[in-house]
């Protein structure tokens, strides 16, 4: 028997069921400058753990000591992370948390939103290339989740050329070697 190759893709049907999720994930990657799907699934897992904790606590009795103690602790952590506002300190609001809210707390988006970078991708480069500090600590992890009170202290690192340190390797080389070319260009720029 000669075999007949029928050009029907069996994967199209599987694709139909997941196309929505793929679209959403791609949008998040574009908006927050992520590297791959794994970064999204990582945050999803974190969110799922938080939500299941809140869900379990809500099934307990209102006055049970476990609910009070662990509920307060969970809410305090959420407020500290900047995921809940000051007037949203109830367990029901924890169940309303979404992925974009968590992704907003990443250092990469914070650097962009605070005007320290020109785009999210530029922010990722700056962070990875050790130009950004949070408080006094140099941070080069783009997925660092920024706390509310650290948000104000995101700034350029002291040793970075953007933050007042000595100029970078390329600039130093140019200043050392073709000095005559550079001075001519500077004179032209002044006029």
């Amino acid at each position, binding site marked *: 028997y000669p075999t007949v190759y029928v050009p029907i893709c069996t994967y199209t049907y599987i694709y139909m069921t997941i196309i929505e999720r793929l679209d959403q994930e791609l949008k998040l990657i574009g908006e927050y400058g992520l590297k791959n799907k794994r970064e999204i699934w990582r945050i999803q897992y974190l969110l799922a753990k938080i939500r299941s904790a809140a869900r379990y606590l809500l099934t307990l009795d209102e006055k049970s000591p476990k609910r009070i103690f662990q509920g307060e602790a969970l809410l305090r952590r959420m407020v500290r992370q900047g995921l809940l506002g000051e*007037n949203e300190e109830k367990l029901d609001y924890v169940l309303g948390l979404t992925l974009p809210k968590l992704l907003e707390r990443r250092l990469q988006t914070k650097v962009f939103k*605070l*005007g*320290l*970078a*020109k785009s999210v991708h*530029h922010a990722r480069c700056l962070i990875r290339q050790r130009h950004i500090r949070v408080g006094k600590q140099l941070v080069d992890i783009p997925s660092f989740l920024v706390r509310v009170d650290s*948000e*104000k*202290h*995101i*700034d*350029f690192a002291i040793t970075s*050329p*953007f*933050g*007042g340190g*000595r100029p970078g390797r390329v600039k130093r080389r140019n200043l050392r070697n073709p000095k005559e070319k550079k001075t001519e260009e*500077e004179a032209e*720029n*002044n006029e």
Partner: protein
Amino acid sequence: MAPSTPLLTVRGSEGLYMVNGPPHFTESTVFPRVNIISVTNKGLLHSFDLPKAVCLEFSPKNTVLATWQPYTTSKDGTAGIPNLQLYDVKTGTWLKSFIQKKTQNWCPSWSEDETLCARNVNNEVHFFENNNFNTIASKLHLQKINDFVLSPGPQPYKVAVYVPGSKGAPSFVRLYQYPNFAGPHAALANKSFFKADKVTMLWNKKATAVLVIASTDVDKTGASYYGEQTLHYIATNGESAVVQLPKNGPIYDVVWNSSSTEFCAVYGFMPAKATIFNLKCDPVFDFGTGPRNAAYYSPHGHILVLAGFGNLRGQMEVWDVKNYKLISKPVASDSTYFAWCPDGEHILTATCAPRLRVNNGYKIWHYTGSILHKYDVPSNAELWQVSWQPFLDGIFPAKTITYQAVPSEVPNEEPKVATAYRPPALRNKPITNSKLHEEEPPQNMKSQSGNDKPLSKTALKNQRKHEAKKAAKQEARSDRSPDLAPTPAPQSTPRSTLSQSISGDPEIDKKIKNLKKKLKAIEQLKEQAATGKQLEKNQLEKIQKETALLQELEDLELGI
């Protein structure tokens, strides 16, 4: 010899004159020469031959006059004459002239006591000391330096400089202390940011911190047509932060308060939010949202006016900043100019040409919201400029704030209530409440959300007891009145007028109530003493205070 009220200068198509003092008219025709006229002596001091002088500026202590003419080169290509001239005002001699090609930032800046004068030239800032313009005292060299602002106040002076960023490099604002400019650790503080094309730097009065409003010309996200603005805070001790503004949108206005401990920012898409921040950039008080785009502190710093001028109708809110209470909400429609009087009590709003050519005039308000004086220019004339006579800071004392409106002869114009247009089919229908914007009330007027908890059993019982008592009192009163109608009536009326207290000022009312409570308690104690009960020590002291309390009560009621 300061007069008791500041003078008001008015410049319009009718001429240049002053109000509230002896009005004397001086001619304001356009002279090809620059004349310096002494106002107190009414005489011509000096006259300079400066054709095409476009800008004039006096130094802070009025010792030097700077003038600027447009820079022209002669036809054969040789460099033109220096066009920025500096003259000594007292002697009329010419001090120095410079070539200044750009109009922007043409004027050299002086420090407040004139020991320093600074000028931005190419990639450097030149500093001159004691108005000696022949030798440059020191230079600050920074590639592509664009703008600088000298700090106010006494020595040591500081300079905030702004350098825009080139490709890849961010723009930054640096603080230096004069005269340490050289060396790697010369800068007191440094803040870099990317999204900035133009920058406005605001020093506070004590020269301890600068607020920087960085604005871009184009908003890449497309949210605003006017570009994007961010607010940065840099302190001379090296701290710097980005001020987090809860609402998205442009930053309309930022002002420091006079004690340099707080600043107020008006920001966000309309209706804009106004918030007071402290030196750590934490919000201290939030005024909620409203139609406003400007903020003005009074000269003494205890009153803040949030106003909406320009493309807004002119609604103003006058707030007491110590207690965060709203004093009044006047409306000054179509105003283009707003100024506090140096005595800290009166406000001037004016409609001036060429911004608006119709309905030119000015109004003088008291801060409690009443118009004290109004002047409308006759219909074909224009008003160009109005300003208060400037006074030094300490001359007028700070007075306590009243909340009651000061009486005025000028009636408050009620603007026509604008009703929305409804097509004939939808008229005379029941009113549905739909709002365009979410209005947020100020922080102290927000209803507490914590009261949702259902009242406990005891609280409910107490509430019911309270209501029952009230109902019983009402019945007793209504029972009594028909029986003893004529006699209690004259008795109760003087009592009720006393208790109502005529003053509209809630603060004084509260105080009167408290005093009356204390007096009642003392009377009860006296009765007990009369029946023979032995009084405790503190009760005896209370009785002795009675005369003092009576005196206070009389004073307050007389003061109404």
